[in-house]
């Protein structure tokens, strides 16, 4: 049996506010990610995704619980170049060129021979001589991805990797990612774009308020919680300027209850339905 890429047990992070009040950002996560998996961390802002990623990378230590990356401590895995990341809050130096930025990080990894490899893989060749501050948000994001590839990691963690990219750049980014996944890298990405989880992840972990709400093959998560939906048009007299009349809706609920229908909420996209149901966000009535 091979060592999993990542194993977390009872992972919890509590932040202490200024007034002494505590905020539980991550609340007892148990998770195992096998080698070669592509996993999406899906959840709304504030779900605890970034804190979780920080703990995976050893940038934040958990309040309680354990975490192992390839059987080692996260910090050890980082030092060995086995895990790398594109971080949401990771910054670049504006007055380095693209190439200098990659050379600097490659020097710190002791892997100067990787510079040309990652420039080619991420298509940054034409931008190599440009100052970082002259690059667009999407180009900077691509540079961050190049930096993550420098140590030739077995596990890549991406926190909201396509933030600030337009549709074209996003597509290009995921094409590069797919090529990389084919090399057998394990990829974990946090996102709040449902479509990205749907299109790129074999497995989806739904997170809300610091907890895992669902975890399984993306298709199953969608099937189990999204299933099929039914749309019906209410009669004209039941619809006012404020939407469907509450009393009429209550009548419908009562009428449908014997059939085992527990909710009337109707959403369009299937995975979105799962997302909303599980994260407890209010759907439009």
């Amino acid at each position, binding site marked *: 049996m091979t060592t999993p890429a990542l194993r977390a047990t009872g992972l919890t992070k509590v932040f202490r506010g200024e007034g002494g009040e505590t905020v539980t950002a991550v609340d007892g996560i148990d998770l195992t990610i096998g080698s070669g998996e592509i996993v999406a961390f899906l959840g709304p802002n504030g779900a605890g995704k970034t804190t979780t990623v920080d703990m995976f*990378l050893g*940038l*934040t230590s958990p309040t309680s619980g354990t975490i192992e990356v390839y059987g080692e401590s996260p910090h050890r895995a*980082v*030092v*060995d*170049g086995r895990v*790398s*990341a594109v*971080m949401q*809050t*990771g*910054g*670049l*130096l504006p*007055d*380095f060129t693209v190439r*200098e930025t990659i*050379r*600097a*990080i490659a*020097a*710190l*990894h*002791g*892997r*100067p*021979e*990787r510079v040309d*490899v990652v420039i080619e*893989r991420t298509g940054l060749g034409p931008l190599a001589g440009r100052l970082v501050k002259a690059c667009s948000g999407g180009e900077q994001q691509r540079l*961050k991805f190049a*930096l*993550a590839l420098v*140590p*030739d990691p077995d596990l890549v963690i991406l926190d909201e990797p396509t933030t600030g990219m337009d549709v074209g750049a996003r597509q290009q980014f995921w*094409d590069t990612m*797919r*090529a*990389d*996944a*084919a*090399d*057998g890298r394990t990829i974990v990405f946090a996102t709040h774009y449902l479509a990205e989880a749907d299109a790129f992840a*074999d497995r989806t972990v739904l997170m809300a308020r610091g907890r895992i709400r669902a975890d399984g093959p993306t298709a199953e998560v969608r099937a189990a919680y999204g299933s099929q939906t039914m749309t019906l048009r209410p009669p004209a007299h039941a619809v006012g300027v404020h939407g469907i009349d509450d009393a009429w809706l209550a009548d419908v609920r009562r009428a449908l209850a014997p059939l085992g229908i527990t909710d009337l909420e109707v959403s369009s996209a299937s995975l979105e339905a799962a997302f909303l149901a599980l994260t407890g966000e209010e759907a439009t009535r």
Partner: protein
Amino acid sequence: MSTISIPDTQATATPRRPAARPLAVSYAGLDLKRQLRDKVGMFFIVALPAFLFFVFGMGDDESYGSANVAMYVMVSMAAYGAVTATTTVAGAAATEQTMGWGRQLALTPLSSLAFVAIKTAVAMAVAAVPIALIYAIGAATGSSGNAVDWLASAGIAWLGSALFAVYGLAICLVFKGENAASIASGLIVILSFLGNVFTPMDGLMLEIGRFTPLYGYAGLARYPISEGYLPMGAGHDPVWLLLANVCAWTVIFAALAVWGLRRRRERV
């Protein structure tokens, strides 16, 4: 699974690589190059002290201690340039950490201690630039003194400027934000006046100035020439007083830096 495949030769050729070690010198070289390219920064580090040297006494051949006035002013301005250099580099290092580059570095095998060592090396390399340049200008325009004056003053000005790396770090850790580095270098100008670096002071101002951070450092750099005697008969500073000033401010800046770092960590 994806169907697109671009083979990564690096990945397939070596299944488990030997542990690579950070090439700190390469990183420091890139970082130094970046610093030297910063035109605004280098203006304050090199051009401004050179200009002030020109204004305050370039070529003034009146004798002063074992040298002449031009030499005295030259040492002061070189010291000012060196201090601005270390303050700027150290301040930028603190800012880089808070702007997120620190998180990128945290994903490499580089230890915090090695980072501090790299930044210190870069700061000291940049500090050598104004000293070398202003001494070269001085040599060409009639600063004169004996060999000990030249070598000892340059050495003290260079080594002593390290104190202001601690200062730059402290200011940028205490006042966070992008402007912290500008505040730190701006304060250096005021502290230089108070520290008897620009125009010679006397009376009450001198008494106050003795307690400011640049006073001890600049006094020590000029000590080989002046042996502690102040210009225009304003008095004499024993070497212990100058050393005490430097030691006291080293402790104060270091304590401030540690306090700033702790406060910042707590907020995370």
